[in-house]
């Protein structure tokens, strides 16, 4: 077993990091690594890019574990477990649920990067959403990235290189992840979580290879049910009143989904924080540690607002997949459908609308996503989007 086992469909990227970690594990020899920029050389600043769900941060922490573990990332030792719980003393993490990373957060991180490692060979600094830094904030990082102390390694994650300033890009070594195939993701679900093959394939497809989402769909009946309801709301819309009621229903679904995810994640976080503080589950929190637990709870509360927007966005991605499928059928593209499970309804939808209308709906969904990200009232954004679905109905009814 090793920390690399739980990653999927990223064999090229894993090879790069494995090689880097094993090179790093070799005795530090200045004369050998100094001039060498070859594949075995230890690079101190990394950037992992890839679409959401491709496993950017999973890979970042696997690499961190491989650097901090005395056995090169065994996945079972105390170091590895502490990395998994984000509590390793030589690991510093900057992850945010806010839209922007503040300059103070980065300053703190940069100054802590100057320390020598306390127990491991390295000190690892991870910034999970490096794309959320303003230019001024990025500039604080530049010098740290360029000349980190001998034993400090930076790992930045972002959706794409284009999300970072050229000055940052030029100082890091980039490793690009690809969207894993549905087969890769299904394989992971079977291997890691013991999911039935058929369920795994369906979940991987419906999650469009987003690993976290696929896991939820495969293992959580409610999540599956909510996804199915989302699609059926859209398929049932014929009139403007339908659209208004449908938008309200979608909001309820998004809210329920966001709440479920938040609850699961909060509970997990709380448990792992307590464990790292040495408190067993069910045991009372000693007074001395209560403030730490309280800080965590406050952070969790703060991010609840953001999670609703994320919940709506997940719904919109699901709806987009529905109309993408319909378009493929209308165009006779013969490509694999995402929503194979409701092929019958998809065929009917493709039949009763024109490709141009399907495209208009897809545009409307994209506009709704943009609006919600710009703080337009969610209800209004969804209503406007669903009203577009009534256009084809009207046209067919009155030729």
């Amino acid at each position, binding site marked *: 077993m090793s920390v690399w086992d739980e990653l999927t469909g990223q064999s090229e990227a894993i090879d790069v990091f494995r090689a880097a970690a094993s090179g790093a594990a070799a005795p530090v020899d200045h004369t050998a690594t100094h001039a060498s920029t070859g594949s075995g050389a230890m690079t101190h600043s990394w950037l992992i890019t890839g679409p959401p769900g491709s496993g950017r941060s999973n890979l970042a922490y696997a690499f961190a574990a491989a650097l901090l573990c005395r056995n090169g990332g065994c996945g079972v030792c105390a170091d590895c477990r502490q990395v998994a719980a984000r509590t390793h003393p030589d690991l510093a993490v900057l992850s945010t649920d806010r839209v922007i990373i503040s300059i103070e957060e980065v300053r703190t991180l940069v100054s802590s990067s100057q320390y020598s490692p306390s127990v491991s060979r390295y000190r690892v600094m991870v910034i999970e959403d490096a794309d959320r830094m303003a230019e001024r904030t990025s500039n604080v990082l530049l010098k740290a990235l360029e000349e980190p102390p001998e034993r400090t390694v930076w790992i930045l994650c972002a959706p794409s290189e284009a999300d970072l300033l050229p000055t940052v890009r030029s100082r890091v070594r980039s490793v690009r992840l690809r969207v894993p195939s549905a087969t890769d993701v299904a394989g992971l679900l079977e291997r890691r979580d013991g999911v039935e093959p058929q369920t795994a394939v369906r979940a991987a497809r419906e999650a469009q290879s987003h690993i976290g989402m696929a896991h939820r769909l495969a293992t959580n009946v409610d999540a599956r049910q909510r996804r199915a309801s989302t699609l059926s709301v859209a398929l049932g819309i014929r009139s403007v009143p339908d659209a208004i009621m449908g938008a309200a229903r979608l909001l309820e679904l998004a809210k329920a989904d966001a709440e479920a995810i938040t609850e699961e994640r909060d509970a997990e976080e709380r448990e792992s924080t307590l464990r790292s503080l040495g408190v067993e589950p069910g045991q009372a929190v000693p007074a001395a540690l209560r403030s730490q637990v309280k800080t965590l709870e406050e952070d969790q509360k703060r991010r609840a607002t953001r999670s*609703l927007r994320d919940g709506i966005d997940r719904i919109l991605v699901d709806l987009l997949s529905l109309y993408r499928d319909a378009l493929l059928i209308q165009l006779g593209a013969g490509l694999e459908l995402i929503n194979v499970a409701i092929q019958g309804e998809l065929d009917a939808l493709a039949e009763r609308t024109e490709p141009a209308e399907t495209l208009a709906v897809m545009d409307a969904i994209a506009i709704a996503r943009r609006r919600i990200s710009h703080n337009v009232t969610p209800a209004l954004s969804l209503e*406007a989007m669903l009203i577009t679905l*009534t256009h084809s109905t009207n046209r067919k009814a009155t030729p």
Partner: protein
Amino acid sequence: MAAVRGSRSGAVKSAAGKTSGKSPAPVIPQLTWEQIRPAAVVLVSGTESFLADRAIRQLRDLLKLEDPSLEVTDIDAASYAPGELLTMASPSLFGEPRMIRVTSVEKCTDNFILEAIDYLAYPADDTYVVLRHGGGVRGKRLLDAVRAATGDVIEVVCTELKKDTERYDFAVAEFRAAGRRVSPGAVRALVSAFSDDLAELSSACNQLVADTSDEITEATVERYYAGRVETNAFAVADSAIAGRYGESLALLRHALATGADPVPMVAAFAMKLRTMAKVLGTRGGSGQLAGQLGLAPWQIDRARRDLQGWTGEGLGRSIQMLAETDENIKGGGRDPVYSLERMIATISARGEL
């Protein structure tokens, strides 16, 4: 800034509705609007017509629930035809229960006073007579007789909610009925912004319930109603929806000139058009539809009036225009005033531009 104003009513007048200056103390039960219950004669008194309407609708819904065959009839006491009350109260062929709503008792004819007093002595079986008296001295003789009656008679007192604490309790109850959490600061801010009109306060509560998903805080209220924009916003929306383009544009400019924020302006339009869209094409009584549509009966009645001249397609285009306007305003870049004016042009043409 919606600074919370303190209660402006230092000395509170004794409960309105009891117009009987030197009349004997009532012997019948006196209830608040939400305590309304069936009785042979129900006097709904007081100047707060929003609460009176609500209480009467609540009674109707309750009776309808008990027996769906309930027959509801209305009498206008101001133009009362002699014998009307007895005719309507006389048993029908199939023995359905009857609810007789008498409006404008404060302007009633002398004939009505005489016949209603007679009726008090011999009320009909399975019949519920609701007397709505909106305040004033007219009909005092009848009110005294009702209040001294010995039978199954109650009075529901719909006093104007003059005190901020009363309006506060009212707003809290509105949110509680919708199952929503609201901070005390938010309620205080709302109450101070809507101190004039209970219907507006109620619709503001409903709007916040519809438009937000988290706990409603003072910040939420501030975002929507800073600077008492609300009344202006609803006035602009009402006039645009009724097709009065020029008036609506003038109201908009006035509102903006007096510091109104464009964001709650769009929210007021959204709330109204959304309600209209839900009500569009529905049939049946507003009381019956209320639960199904998640709206109050008065909202349904209002939306039906607002829907005059509108089509589903026009409504659809207008709502899409609102989303676009909201984005223009919040995203900056475009001129918010221009965006709002364009929105009003579309909506006052009922989306048929």
